[in-house]
């Protein structure tokens, strides 16, 4: 038992020596991780809302395109989409940096999920609301903008928070196309300092510190929504 405690103490004693050296790199890497996460979530939200509206539109062509997109985005790994954009486009003359590519690729891929979440939110609002909007002479765009989407957004909020956590975790894939975020730095540090376990556990802890508050917030929102909307739905 004592022997293991000693080993554990030896393991931990590396951190005070190495942390000052890693700190600057890691903080910059966290910033990049957050930029990739926020950027691709924003792209996914825009795509998701547009696709959800397209899926529920009367136009069969729009519906078909949206279904096709969602099917592909949900069936192909995000990493494959990243590789396709980063390695597949340059031979065709389109060259992008790693970070914008990661934001675009993760956003395109997550957009399919967001579309389904928002669609479920729109379908959960009562049909009478749309009809009420029509009777007071609102256009269909106004109905979506002022009546349906604000409610749908509230209903989909907990699921969207979960998607945001997934995006945060998926941002680690950007390291594989050399975006300078947490995992790329972890890999670089582990090969220069030969301390893979130390840096990986540290980076894992950083991801947890970013993800756990989000998941607690999502749980809180879910509970609040059920107690508030419970009698209305």
């Amino acid at each position, binding site marked *: 038992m004592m022997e293991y405690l000693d080993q554990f103490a030896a393991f931990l004693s590396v951190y005070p020596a190495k942390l000052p050296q890693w700190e600057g790199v890691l903080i910059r890497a966290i910033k990049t991780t957050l930029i990739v996460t926020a950027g691709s979530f924003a792209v996914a939200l825009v795509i998701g809302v547009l696709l959800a509206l397209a899926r529920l539109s009367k136009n069969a062509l729009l519906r078909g395109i949206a279904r096709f997109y969602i*099917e*592909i985005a*949900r*069936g*192909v*790994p*995000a*990493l*494959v*989409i990243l*590789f*396709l954009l980063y*390695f*597949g*486009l*340059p*031979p*065709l003359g389109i060259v992008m940096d790693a970070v914008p590519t990661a934001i675009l690729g993760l956003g395109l891929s997550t957009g399919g999920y967001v579309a389904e979440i928002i669609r479920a939110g729109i379908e959960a609002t009562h049909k009478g609301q749309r009809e009420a909007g029509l009777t007071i002479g609102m256009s269909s765009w106004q109905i979506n903008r002022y009546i349906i989407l604000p409610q749908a957004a509230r209903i989909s909020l907990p699921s969207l928070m979960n998607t945001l*956590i997934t995006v945060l*975790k*998926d*941002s*680690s*894939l950007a*390291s*594989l196309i050399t975006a300078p975020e947490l*995992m790329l730095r*972890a*890999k670089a540090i*582990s090969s220069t300092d030969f*301390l*893979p*376990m*130390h840096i*990986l*556990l540290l*980076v*894992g802890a950083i*991801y*947890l510190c970013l*993800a*756990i508050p989000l*998941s607690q917030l999502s749980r809180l929102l879910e509970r609040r929504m059920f107690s508030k909307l419970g009698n209305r739905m």
Partner: protein
Amino acid sequence: MEQFGDLFTRSASHLEVLLQGAGVTVMITLGSFVMAVTIGLVLAVARTWKIRPLNALIAIYVEVFRGLPTLTLLFICYFGLTYVGIKLNPLPAAIIGLGLSGGAYCTEIFRSGISALHHGQREAAAAIGMTPMRAMRFVILPQALRITLPPLGNYAIGLIKDTAVASAVAAPEILFRARNLSTETFDTALIYLLVAVLYLVMTFPLARWVDHLEKKRKAWQ
């Protein structure tokens, strides 16, 4: 016309290599699926015993392994464990890493399946003299498993896609072969398009099955 013929022969020769990778992808998927479902079932049932310290440990496991990126977990299994003298090959490392994170998801899936059942079921089983073990085995689990089929299906779809990450620890699955192939032939766009199609072929039937299950359940309610 000639160009299209060329495209066809190129695709055929790429596919030959990629399909070998597909076998490995299926192996990783099956291996980690079995591991995740086993962990999930055991932990979800263990949670119903209501032993405080045990439940706290399970909650920590679920929270930690759901919060970690799969890539981080795979790197810990593949590069990190060498620190404690464990050297895993890429394939077992991928299966264990994906299985551990999947176990956390499956625990939650089974937990919600079990808690979706009316508590009267458990009481009825107790009233006719079943032990808690027998009630779990013959009354609760058969019903809970049926409820959990759609989310389990969704998890399996996600898992197939997540196996792509195993390419980063050099497991010779589809994406890993694609990377090698594209450095040999420089035919990147076509190769990655084929890869996307291969993943779609694997996930599409599962997605249709999940849709079917969900529609059936909606009609039932």
